[in-house]
C-alpha cells in the first residue's frame, strides 16, 4: 500500500491543468463520489434495519424469545420454506423465459429490438397491483384461459389460488429484472466468437453452449439474484393470486407488525428472512465466481 501511495503523491504534485487536477482529486477520493448514495443507504436502510434487528431482541423483553417463537412454530417454518421454494420457481421461470428473449433482442434489427424492449418495459411501467388483477381475470376458474380450455372440450384446470398461479403472476412482474441485465451483458458479446468456434469445428449447439452461454453467465447471475431477492419479499401478488397455501412470509410479517403491533416478532421474522437470504447467496457465490476456461476474453 505504502509503495503505491508514493508515486500517487509525486504524480499529483506534477504541474497540470486544472481539469486534470480535479480529475485526479476525484480519483484519489472515490469515497466522496459514493458518499451521497452511502448516506442515503445508511439513513434510509441501515438505520431502520438496525432498529428492527434491535427490537427483535428487545421486545417485549431482552432475549431470544422472538426467535424461539419463530423456530418453535410450524406455521412460520412452513411459510419460510414456501417463500424460498416459490422464489426459486419464479427465478427458474424467469431464466427460461428471459434468456431466449434477451438473446433475440441482440440478434434482431434495431426496429424489432425497439419493439422487444418496449414489450419488456411497458408492463414494467404499469403498477404491480394492476397487472396482478389482470392475472386474476385471466387465471380464475371462469376466466379467459379456462374458458378457452372449456371451449375446446377439455376440463378446466385450477390456476388461481394455487402456487402455479402465484409463480406465473410473479414471474411476469419480475421478468424485466431478468431480461435487462441479461441483455446488457449479451449485447457486449462478440458474435464472431461463435463463428470462430464454428470454424474450428464446433457444431452450432456446441458453439452456443461452450462459447456464448459462459460469456452470458454474469448477466444471468445478476438477473437471477435480483429476481430471487425481489421475489422473497413479494406481498400483493401472492395475496391476490394465491390461497392460504401460497401465503409468503411478508404477509405474516405484515400481520404481526400492522395488526398485532408485535414489532419484536415481526422484526425477528424479517431478520430470519434476511439472514437466510445471505446464507443462500453466500452458498451460491462460488458458482458465480468460477472462471471459465473456454471462451473467456478476460
Amino acid at each position, binding site marked *: 500500500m505504502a509503495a503505491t501511495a508514493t508515486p500517487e503523491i509525486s504524480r499529483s504534485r506534477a504541474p497540470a491543468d486544472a481539469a486534470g487536477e480535479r480529475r485526479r482529486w476525484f480519483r484519489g477520493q472515490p469515497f466522496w463520489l459514493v458518499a451521497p448514495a452511502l448516506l442515503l443507504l445508511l439513513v434510509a436502510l441501515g438505520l431502520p434495519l438496525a432498529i428492527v434487528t434491535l427490537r427483535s431482541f428487545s421486545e417485549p423483553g431482552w432475549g431470544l424469545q422472538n426467535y424461539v417463537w419463530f423456530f418453535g412454530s410450524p406455521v412460520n417454518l412452513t411459510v419460510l420454506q414456501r417463500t424460498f421454494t416459490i422464489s426459486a420457481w419464479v427465478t427458474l421461470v424467469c431464466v427460461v423465459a428471459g434468456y431466449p428473449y434477451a438473446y433475440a433482442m441482440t440478434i434482431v434489427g434495431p426496429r424489432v429490438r425497439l419493439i422487444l424492449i418496449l414489450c419488456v418495459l411497458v408492463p414494467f411501467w404499469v403498477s404491480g397491483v394492476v397487472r396482478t388483477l389482470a392475472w386474476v381475470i385471466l387465471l380464475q376458474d371462469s376466466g379467459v384461459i379456462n374458458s378457452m380450455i372449456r371451449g375446446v372440450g377439455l376440463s378446466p384446470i385450477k390456476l388461481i389460488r394455487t402456487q402455479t398461479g402465484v409463480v406465473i403472476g410473479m414471474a411476469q412482474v419480475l421478468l424485466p429484472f431478468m431480461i435487462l441485465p441479461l441483455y446488457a451483458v449479451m449485447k457486449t458479446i462478440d458474435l464472431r466468437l461463435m463463428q470462430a468456434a464454428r470454424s474450428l469445428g464446433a457444431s452450432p449447439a456446441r458453439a452456443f453452449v461452450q462459447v456464448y452461454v459462459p460469456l452470458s453467465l454474469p448477466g444471468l447471475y445478476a438477473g437471477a439474484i435480483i429476481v430471487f431477492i425481489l421475489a422473497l419479499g413479494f406481498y400483493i401478488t401472492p395475496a391476490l393470486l394465491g390461497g392460504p397455501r401460497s401465503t409468503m412470509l411478508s*404477509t405474516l410479517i405484515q400481520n404481526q407488525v400492522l395488526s398485532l*403491533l408485535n414489532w419484536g416478532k415481526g422484526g425477528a421474522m424479517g431478520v430470519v428472512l434476511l439472514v437466510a437470504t445471505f446464507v443462500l447467496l453466500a452458498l451460491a457465490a462460488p458458482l458465480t465466481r468460477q472462471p471459465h476456461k473456454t471462451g473467456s476474453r478476460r
Partner: protein
Amino acid sequence: MMIKFGQATALALLMATTAALAQDKPVAGQVGDGSLKDKTLTFVSYGGIYQDGQIAALKEFVDKSGVQLLSDGPTEISKLQAQVESGNVTWDVVDTGDFPPFVYCGKLFQKLDFSKIDTSNIPKGQISECSVPAMNYGVVLMYNTDKYKDNPPKSWKDFFDIEKFPGSRALEGSGDLSGGMIEQALLAAGGSVENMTVADIDKAIEKVRSLGPDTIFWKTGADSQQLAESGEADMIAMWTGRAMTAVKNGAKYTPAWQDWLVVMDQMTIPMGVKDPDAAHALINAYVGKTSQEVLAKTTSYTPIHKDAKPEVDEVTASFMTNTPDKLKLGYQQNIKFWVENFEVANEKWNALMSGN
C-alpha cells in the same frame, strides 16, 4: 305562512339557546360559528370513496367552525403507535376497524369525554370508552341464485353445511379475523358461544377448514365483488357495500340476512393530540343527522344516527342495515372475548390463512 314563520323563529330561538348552552350539552352535528378558527385538524381514514364521503359529511362542520381540515391515511395502527410513542401525534381523529379502540383503549386511544359528544342518537351498544361508531355495515351471506334455485341457504349454519348445500364458499381473509364469523362457525360445529374458551376457537377454525381446500379467502372488498360478478363461488360472505355493488352490476346473488354480522368502523382520538376539544367537536359534528345522511348517500354505508333518512336508490336502500327488520336479524360478536384473546385468536386464524 305566518304560522310557519313563527315556527321558524321559535326554532331559531331554540337553536340559539342550544348553541349558548353548547358548553354544557352538545348537540350532534352542531358546532359554534368560527369556534375553531385558525385551528387545524387531521382526519385519518381508509381512503377511497369512503374517506371522500366522510370529508363531504364534515363540510358543514368545516365551513361553520372555520377549522382547516387535513386528510391523511390509510389508517395503520402501527403508524399511530409510532406517533404516540415518539410523542409527536399528528393524527387528531382516526377512523379504525372494529377491534383497535378496544384493544388499545387508554394506550393508543384516549378515553372520550362524552360531555362533549352527543351520543343520544347512536344505536345502543355501539359506543365504547374510547370510540363511537363511524358507520355501520355488515357481513352478509350472499348465495348464487342460479345454483341454489328453490332450496337456498338460509343462515350461516347452511353456509357451513357442505353436505346439504354443496358448492364452493368464499369468506373474508383480508387481515384481522372476524370474530362474528368464527362464532357462527362454532355454532355450526355444535358449540356454544356462551362462555367461549380458547379451545372453542380451534373447534370453530376446524369447522372453517372442513369447508375444503377450494375455499376462497378473499383479500379485498374488490376481490369479493369480483368473485360474485364472475360467479366464482356459490356462497360468499360479503361486506354489504360490496354485495350491493355486485348486485347493481348484475351479479345473480341474493342475501340471506339471518344473523348477518354487525360490523362498524370506529371514530377515535389518539393519546396526546394537541387539541382534544377540537377533535371531540369534529366527532360531535360527524355523528349529526345531516352529516350521516351525506355520508350514507355518498358511500352507501349505513348511517349511525337513528333519524337519518338518506336519499338512496332502491338497491342501496335494500342493503342498509339500520331498518327494524334487519336490526332484528343482526348478530353482534362478543367483542370482549375477542379483545381479551386478540393475539392468540389471531395466531390461530393466521395459521389457517397460511395453509396450516
